[in-house]
């Protein structure tokens, strides 16, 4: 239809991928403990639902903030009129301090370098508009969050070139992988403008090591390009090791006020750490004045609601609350993650050792019929339709090795997680016994499935899909 733009007629929004198709199935048959106990359990949703009680308690103790009041007086009118794209000063200050607290107060964030955005979805897109021309590229380590295909490329025209990471070293970024990706971009005639990493990683749940961070900073220094560090899960770290931000590394390398520091940008959001994805609170932090200036103007296209800014400025300014919350959040995430890991182990399934995020990167390679992505999708279909668990296949995250799946744990009750693991265990046990079927019939079925799976995977989805699930 020539009357619509190519952005509409193409599928570059990326929502026809299996990652989003799994959603459809879940929506048709969602699990409910009472109403639909045989429904599909949602494990493809990286949400943190473990700490709402803490926020609700805080609200009960803070009626002014809760009621959009100051000193007992309603300030609703003033908030209703406030649309300054610089944002509420108290909110940016509180956000800066919260980001510092998450990093153990080892680094400082200047509120004037924060640009608010409508979620990190908008923050990432805005940064792309500022740093890349259409046709220019950013390097991203695989596997990566499927939403990046939309957020970074769709309306900006930018390209993503993968930095291939493998299970042989726990999917860590190596120098050779970086160089290879850079060369690949050049072969494709794509000018590389930067590297974008998610740290802690989605979907891996691991944190970048100091070695990797140093490697990245050295790499962007030598190539004179940007580094975007999406640190959306920085407050969701629960292991013994502390989170190391790219800002820590800049400080350690004494690059804080250098030209290089102007090419390092951090993206943040309150959607994961605080469990508030509905509020659409994202932020860009940049040492580059021009980026801050341009991004601030662009934020007009997605400002944060003033009532939300006001509420959160009060919440995050309460240091007693933030300290308690971050601590308690970590504890609860750790317990829940352990529960998932043990449940997987009982089913004979291992996962990548991780200590951050709201998910585990699960190794189901041994359950594949063949070491192919077709087999991965076959397995995934079974898990969705038969085991009734919506999990995310590694291929949707651009993983180079088939057989890995992202499984979320922070968006359900303990009982539901138990049930999910029970179902998985039963499936694996039944699969083990089914593997004793004759090989010939197995081969026949496999070749049939190969064809039908390909058709099914690539069909265009014309219905709307829920977005934004990391």
């Amino acid at each position, binding site marked *: 239809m020539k009357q619509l*733009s190519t952005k509409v007629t193409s599928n570059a929004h990326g929502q026809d991928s299996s990652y989003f198709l799994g959603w459809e199935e879940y929506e048709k048959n969602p699990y409910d403990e009472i109403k639909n106990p045989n429904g599909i359990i949602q494990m493809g949703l990286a949400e943190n639902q473990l700490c709402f009680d803490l926020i609700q308690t805080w609200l*009960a103790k803070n009626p002014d903030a*809760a009621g959009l009041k100051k000193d007992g007086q309603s300030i609703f009118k003033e908030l209703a009129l406030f649309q300054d794209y610089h944002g509420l000063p108290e909110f940016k200050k509180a956000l800066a301090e919260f980001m510092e607290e998450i990093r153990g107060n080892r680094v400082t964030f200047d509120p004037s370098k924060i640009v608010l955005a409508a979620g990190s979805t908008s923050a990432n897109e805005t940064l792309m*508009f500022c740093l890349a021309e259409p046709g220019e590229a950013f390097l991203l380590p695989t596997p990566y969050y499927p939403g990046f295909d939309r957020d970074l490329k769709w309306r900006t025209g930018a390209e993503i070139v993968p930095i291939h990471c493998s299970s042989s070293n726990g999917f860590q970024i190596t120098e050779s992988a970086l160089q290879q990706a850079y060369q690949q971009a050049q072969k494709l005639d794509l000018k590389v403008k930067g590297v974008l990493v998610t740290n802690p990683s989605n979907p891996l749940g691991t944190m970048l090591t100091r070695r990797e961070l140093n490697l990245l900073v050295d790499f962007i220094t030598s190539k004179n390009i940007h580094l975007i560090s999406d640190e959306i899960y920085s407050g969701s770290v629960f292991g013994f090791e502390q989170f190391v931000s790219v800002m820590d590394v800049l400080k350690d390398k004494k690059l804080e006020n250098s030209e290089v520091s102007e090419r390092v940008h951090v993206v943040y959001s309150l959607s994961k750490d605080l469990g508030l994805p509905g509020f659409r609170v994202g932020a860009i932090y940049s040492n580059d004045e021009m980026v801050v200036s341009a991004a601030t103007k662009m934020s007009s296209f997605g400002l944060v609601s003033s009532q939300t800014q006001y509420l959160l400025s009060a919440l995050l300014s309460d240091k007693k609350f933030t300290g308690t919350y971050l601590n308690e959040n970590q504890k609860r995430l750790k317990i829940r993650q352990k529960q998932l890991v043990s449940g997987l182990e009982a089913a004979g399934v291992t996962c990548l050792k991780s200590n951050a995020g709201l998910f585990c990167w699960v190794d189901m390679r041994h359950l594949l019929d063949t070491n192919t992505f077709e087999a991965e999708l076959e397995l995934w279909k079974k898990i969705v339709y038969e085991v009734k668990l919506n999990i995310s296949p590694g291929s949707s995250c651009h993983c180079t090795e088939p057989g890995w799946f992202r499984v979320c744990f922070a968006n359900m009750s303990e009982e539901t997680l138990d049930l999910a693991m029970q179902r998985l265990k039963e499936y694996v046990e039944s699969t083990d016994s089914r593997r004793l079927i004759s090989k010939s019939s197995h081969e026949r079925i496999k070749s049939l499935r190969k064809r039908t799976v390909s058709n099914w995977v690539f069909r265009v989805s014309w219905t709307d899909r829920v977005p934004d699930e990391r």
Partner: protein
Amino acid sequence: MVALTAEKQDQNLLSRMAAGDGHGEKSAYFDGWKAYEENPFHPIDRPDGVIQMGLAENQLCGDLMRKWVLEHPEASICTAEGVNQFSDIAIFQDYHGLPEFRQAVAKFMEKTRNNKVKFDPDRIVMSGGATGAHETVAFCLANPGDGFLVPTPYYPGFDRDLRWRTGVNLVPVTCHSSNGFKITAEALDAAYENARVSNIPVKGLLITNPSNPLGTTLDRDCLKSLVKFTNDKGIHLIADEIYAATSFGESEFISVAEVIDEIPDCNSDLIHIVYSLSKDMGLPGLRVGIVYSYNDRVVQIARKMSSFGLVSSQTQHLIAKMLSDEDFVDEFIRKSKLRLAERHAELTTGLDGLGIGWLKAGAGLFIWMDLRNLLKTATFDSEMELWRVIVHKVKLNVSPGGSCHCHEPGWFRVCFANMDYQTMETALERIRVFTSQIEEESLILTKPMAKKKKCWQSSLRLSFKDTRRFEEGFFSPHSPVPPSPLVRAQI
């Protein structure tokens, strides 16, 4: 830092979009904002400060809004009455939006169109204010290099919203004061031809109805002819109806939604409405923008794009509750129109008394003031000179027509719905003093060597003996939240 910046541009470290001026904020007219911010008027603390008349905000019914919010704590997910909904709302990020939100907005849109037409909640797509809505529509309907026709004068923010990140062009449809700035078939054809000659494929026509900055509404015949024009050419019609409920005059507001059914074989796939609660309800801070399209594919894709500017679920919840209170909504709309009419009358009566012309109009939050006879020459340079005097000497921040791409110099947009009665009186008094000083000077000049008509180059001293009583609870520059300086070019 400047040297470093130049170096950065040389190395192309930043995109042209970031390094360039496509955001439109380098225009000279932002001086008016600065003058206001450096010296904002306050009746007691700063009686000589600049009065903000460049801000199209509807502040006249803030008291009704506040009262409703206080009386309905359940509309908040944070109060004791509403906190049981906190977690469900806080995790809700579905880009379809809360169903109750869409239903309430659809109902509100119907009420603001006098219930003459139905809106389907499933066609309502959220966006980051009308700013976000316009950009989304441009991304959906046009490719970089394509163009939209826009009647002049138009809202300056369109230059940014429709063009900056989309690469789309705006082609002016020139309107003239000789016929009250109405859009004529000749002007449309001329614009279409200009686009063709410039190799700009025209993808649509964007109208703002009621108009910003004119405050006029399109009559039924004109609206129908615009729909027919766009249908015939196979291009889109985008109707920005952000001021729908601000129509207070005799001529009623007619939405494009109403005329669709009146046109035989109308291709509604080409019709789209942009809306927002920023003006009609006076809630710009809550960022509630709406794309309403009759084209299913556009609805689908705009919805996916809305991920880049969803309405905060906390706000959706509040708005859903508020707009479902039909008694409140009816009362609000009624009172808002009355108060707008009153404030408009105060301003225009005052201007009439001073012999200052203004375009007859019955909607919007501003008037289109005619100061052509105060220009030294009929040029935009002259208009800018006059404007600087108005800002710096008369101390009124108004918006010069040139910034709205008006074809003729000498017109100014003057907002009236963001101040109380006393401030309005102060503004009128200043204008009175200004015009009388011009009279005096032109009389002096006519005696010895009368060549110039009216001259405003003398310095104007303002003196006020009385401090006006400040209306309690109205727009206070000393509110705990800083007053909206509004650097975003909404003028």
